[in-house]
């Protein structure tokens, strides 16, 4: 029976991955690490409260000796100080990968994001995994995530014994996850840039959990875009998730968001607005071919999951 260690197991996505693993026929032993305890966790899950940055974390790997690590514990919100984000996302991931190498872990799955490609005007639709991670060109706050992604990728040649899978899912929506796009769309009035309406891809949280488990089962190695059922323009997504767009001219929206972000009243830095202007859409062919993954939830069901 494979033993899977999930970091960030108390988070929405972590819980879903754990539950998906437990439902599997072949059976998995699920252990978890998080900074906060998962209250009401299912019987099959054992967890340790530990911080990725602390010594205790290494002890968990040493004691549990998992076959697979699913690394979901990264800081995605911007409330934390940039130094904390960097410490957790970059240095934390490096420590995790080093421990994994020295304690005989065979497979590590690192959850990155589609945002690392950046939203740039010259982006083609459907970027594949070979595209450069351009996000920091216009969005420096995203740099630690891109660094985490590339650091994990480097272990593919640095430690060939350990299969590293870097998953870059598109916008995740659902009831349990706290995703950036979810928080953005849950505003009653969603700020957008007048005259822009890019195509956005979405994936349901349960589909992403399924994708992660498929990556485990197929022992995938490499970098994979994970895409859902399709793409719609931003304004359709806003309407379908039950909000209303507040389209402002760009010269107004940037300074407004800058101030609101500085005062802690708006959760995204002003540079994030590029994702409401330009495409950041991914080609998911490689993952589909490697694992046979097809999303179960349609776009309409994915949007409905936000309102639930």
């Amino acid at each position: 029976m494979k033993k899977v260690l999930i970091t960030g197991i108390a988070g929405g996505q972590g819980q879903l991955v754990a539950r998906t693993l437990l439902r599997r026929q072949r059976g998995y032993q699920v252990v978890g690490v998080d900074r906060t305890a998962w209250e009401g966790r299912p019987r099959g899950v054992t967890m340790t409260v530990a911080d990725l940055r602390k010594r205790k974390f290494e002890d968990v790997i040493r004691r549990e000796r998992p076959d697979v690590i699913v690394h979901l514990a990264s800081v995605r919100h911007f409330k934390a100080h940039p130094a904390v984000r960097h410490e957790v996302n970059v240095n934390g991931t490096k420590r995790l990968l080093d421990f994994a190498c020295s304690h005989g872990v065979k497979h590590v799955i690192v959850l990155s994001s589609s945002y690392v490609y950046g939203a740039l005007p010259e982006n083609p639709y459907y970027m594949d995994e070979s595209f450069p991670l351009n996000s920091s060109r216009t969005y420096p706050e995203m740099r630690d995530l891109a660094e985490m992604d590339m650091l994990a990728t480097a272990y593919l040649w640095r430690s060939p014994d350990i299969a590293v899978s870097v998953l870059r899912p598109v916008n995740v929506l659902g009831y349990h996850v706290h995703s950036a796009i979810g928080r953005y769309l849950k505003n009653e009035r969603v700020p957008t840039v007048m005259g822009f309406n890019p195509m956005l891809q979405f994936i349901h949280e349960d589909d992403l959990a399924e994708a992660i488990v498929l990556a485990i089962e197929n022992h995938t190695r490499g970098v994979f875009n994970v895409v859902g059922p399709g793409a719609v323009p931003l304004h359709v997504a806003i309407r379908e998730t039950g909000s209303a767009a507040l389209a402002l001219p760009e010269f107004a929206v940037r300074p407004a968001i800058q101030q609101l972000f500085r005062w802690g009243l708006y959760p995204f830095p002003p540079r994030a607005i590029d994702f409401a202007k330009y495409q950041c859409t991914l080609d998911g062919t490689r993952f589909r071919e490697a694992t046979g993954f097809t999303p179960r939830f349609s776009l309409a069901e994915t949007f409905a999951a936000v309102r639930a």
Partner: protein
Amino acid sequence: MVARVQSLDARRKARQHAAERPRVHSVPPLRPAPPPPPAPGTPGELLAEAARQLWRRINPDVIGAINDELAGRLRRIPTRLNEYGYDPWGFNVDVARRAMIVTTLLYRHYFRVETHGVENLPDGRVLVISNHAGQIALDAAMIGTAAVLEREPPRILRGMGEYWLPTVPFLNVLVSRTGSVVGTPKNCTDLLRNEEAVIAFPEGIRGMNKLFSERYRLQRFGSGFMRLALATKTPIVPVAVVGSEEQAPAIANLTGVARLLGLPAFPITLTWPLLGPLGLLPLPVKYRITFGKPMRFEGGGDDEDAVIAKKVGRVVETIQAMLDKGLRERPGIFF
């Protein structure tokens, strides 16, 4: 009053009748044909006459008929749309239909386009390659309109846009909803692999802003289109547009001013910038669009430049020959 009601009724019937016919090529005549136009006078007179004609023809009935016709035709395009009506590249039928009402009016009543050989446009993946001119990309719009109005079944031609287009507010949305994308190799390959029809102008900006003295002389062709066609085993349909190269005769292109304003070009035409924004209006030239027979090339997409250039040369020769033939055979620039 009664007579008016009856005439409206008759019009509605005519419209219904038109909608039932499987192949509709023109709006049913609403009134007796206008008297033959006077001999071409000065461009100003011609422009005024064209504007009068256009105004007389644009009335809600005509627009309603075009709308119905386009809706019927767009229902039959092979492009697959998701549950919200969008294809993976942002194309949307409703927006495209509304935009095409305008291009159809231009197609039928302003440029009075004559299209030949549209049946040469095959099903499945195809790369349409055409000459490019006229300062504004109306040639692309007219070829695209022809593929919807004249071909059976109608097809959407997917334009390959400039890299700066996505940065222009509103225009970027319109361009995307009507089926165009940024002209990156990845976009082009994906569209072709999806069995779409892609239209490209390998002359690019060099063609668009050519001077009047260079009209119907093809500028240097880029070779990217040929590499993509070979890599995806896509037939090339050469297209010649006669008329567009006289729609906005450019005397000069002030590259210095263009650079200062951050524009791709700053042409001086007979009317622009002399007449202000109105000067952007092209002359009411008559368009003649010819679709040539599909050309199929053998070879690899990453062959040496010289090998690719030879194949590009064959496309250039074909289009140039089609242009020369069209120029020889046309009775005039405006008629």
